[in-house]
């Protein structure tokens, strides 16, 4: 019984504290800084102020809460800076600063430290903080502005995001290049698709994140949006808009690959990605909230251990079959090679004998 349990289920040791990886944290911060740069480029000085203030308050808040809870800081733990960078990037530029501050309090005081700090939290702190803010102040979190808009007159610069258009059953119209460069209304740091893709390549190449969750998740979203399109029109445009709208791409790269709350095995990650993609499309089809990614991620986080267990089981199930298959394949290949070799040798011999016959003649 013990053996079965140890093989098939995730033990408490697997779930124990994950030591912070300084290199990975630095890579994520670099990628987030690139996204922040795009946010500042499109939204101006206010975006810079929000991001800087958010990072500083998050670090100070974590320091204070760490003292209160009596948790020591592990070297290389810069998760507070990552949370501080991510929260404003998932919100519109017009959001008041107190919304970001309260979101940080939720992330650190409610989600992170009551469970034991870094490496122990069950849910992604940023996702919970943004979901909480979304339910508390939907009027701020759902009102986006056009890029390069004059923020001094907010009424004149209100823009409609593709997510809200799709939610209302309309058809968004965004030029291809604008869609790639992020020149459309949406959360500050999540619209620049090309930049996010470049960040994803950098993070995958530096082995900071795994490609599995993102690949399976995005594929699921694409397949479901192709089969059940919300958009009346071509399948391709439906898939494209579903992939670029909201915080989907940003979330799949930076939040779904969180080393603490996501599964640890590759098969588990694949299941997790599929589950997350399915939940997102379910929320988009039947829900009434634009930011479906964060809510789906919270749900998927609670099933992350189940995904890992399933992944382990799948691996165990497929391992002997893999061996058998590889044996059969190698046998098949060797037999074929032998046959071919025999054929070749026969041909060579016949050729030689023919040559000898000619010579003799």
């Amino acid at each position, binding site marked *: 019984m013990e053996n079965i349990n140890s093989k098939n289920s995730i033990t408490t040791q697997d779930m124990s504290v994950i030591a912070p990886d300084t290199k990975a944290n630095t890579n994520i911060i670099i990628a987030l800084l690139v996204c922040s740069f795009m946010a500042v480029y499109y939204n101006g000085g206010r975006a810079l102020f929000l991001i800087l203030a958010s990072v500083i308050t998050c670090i100070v808040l974590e320091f204070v809460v760490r003292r209160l809870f009596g948790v020591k800081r592990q070297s290389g733990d810069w998760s507070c800076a990552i949370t501080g960078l991510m929260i404003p990037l998932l919100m519109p530029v017009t959001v008041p600063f*107190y919304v970001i501050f*309260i979101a940080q309090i*939720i992330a650190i005081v*409610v989600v992170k430290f*009551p469970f034991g700090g870094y490496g122990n939290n069950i849910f992604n702190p940023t996702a919970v903080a943004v979901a*909480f*803010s979304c*339910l*508390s*102040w939907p009027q701020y979190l759902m009102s986006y502005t056009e890029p390069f808009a004059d923020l001094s007159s907010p009424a004149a610069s209100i823009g409609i995001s593709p997510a809200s258009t799709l939610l209302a059953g309309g058809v968004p119209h965004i030029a291809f290049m604008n869609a790639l460069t992020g020149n459309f209304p949406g959360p500050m740091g999540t619209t620049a698709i090309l930049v996010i893709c470049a960040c994803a390549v950098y993070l995958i190449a530096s082995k900071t994140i795994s490609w599995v969750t993102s690949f399976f998740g995005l594929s699921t979203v694409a397949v479901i949006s192709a089969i059940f399109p919300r958009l009346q029109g071509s399948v391709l445009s439906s898939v494209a808009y579903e992939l670029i709208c909201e915080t989907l791409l940003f979330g799949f790269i930076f939040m779904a690959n969180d080393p603490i709350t996501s599964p640890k095995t590759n098969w588990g990650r694949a299941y997790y990605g599929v589950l997350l993609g399915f939940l997102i499309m379910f929320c988009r089809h039947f829900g009434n909230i634009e930011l479906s990614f964060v809510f789906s991620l919270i749900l998927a986080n609670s099933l992350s251990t189940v995904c890992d267990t399933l992944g382990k089981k799948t691996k165990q199930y497929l391992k002997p079959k893999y061996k058998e298959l590889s044996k059969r394949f190698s046998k098949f290949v060797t037999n074929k090679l032998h046959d071919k070799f025999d054929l070749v040798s026969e041909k060579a011999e016949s050729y030689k004998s023919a040559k000898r016959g000619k010579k003799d003649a």
Partner: protein
Amino acid sequence: MRRIKRKTKLFLKSIDGVILGNTVLEKSMIIAPIVVMSTSVLNAAVISIAFALVTFFSVLLSSFLPLKMPRSVRHILHALIASIVYIPVFFLLNLVFAETVYKIGIFIPLLVSNSLIVQRQEHKLATLSRKKYLLYILNHILGFVLAAFVIGSLREIIGMGTFAGKPLNIVAVKGFLYPFGGFIVLGFMSALIKRFNSFLGKRQSDKKIFNMEVLKDEPIE
């Protein structure tokens, strides 16, 4: 300091159920109406009144049931008594707080089953006199009322920016009015009570439960 600690501990022990051993905050029982509907002082008041009346009178009437009666029959009778007591309580509440009673909805009738949880303490009847037993139940009711009021007022202040309907000119965080907000407040209150308990020193009963060596030495009967 030690003397103050001991005196506080003795006093709190004498009113066991109000703060130490609180039904909601320490034993995590009857949390549904508090988490879902205790979003304002008025809601908390209505839930508290309903719970106090239903529980006290049903416990009082149930205490007359003979202890020799089979447990299964006694439980059915408890449920019947609580349901009968609920009818006049509902009419009374509907007369005074009709709108709030409508808003709270199913969570007031559900208090019938919640009062049964308190009635399960009836094993105390074997060791305590009826008067002391009723006092013990009253302590638990007081504990529930206290928890409901504290959580209700906190959620009203944070979630609506008002206190008992009066605006306080602070930022309202609407998320605290949802059930998950209720769980957050309840969790932090419970943690505070646990911290206070450990500050005073663990209670004997807790030591017995959690000390594994004690369990090892004592043979299970």
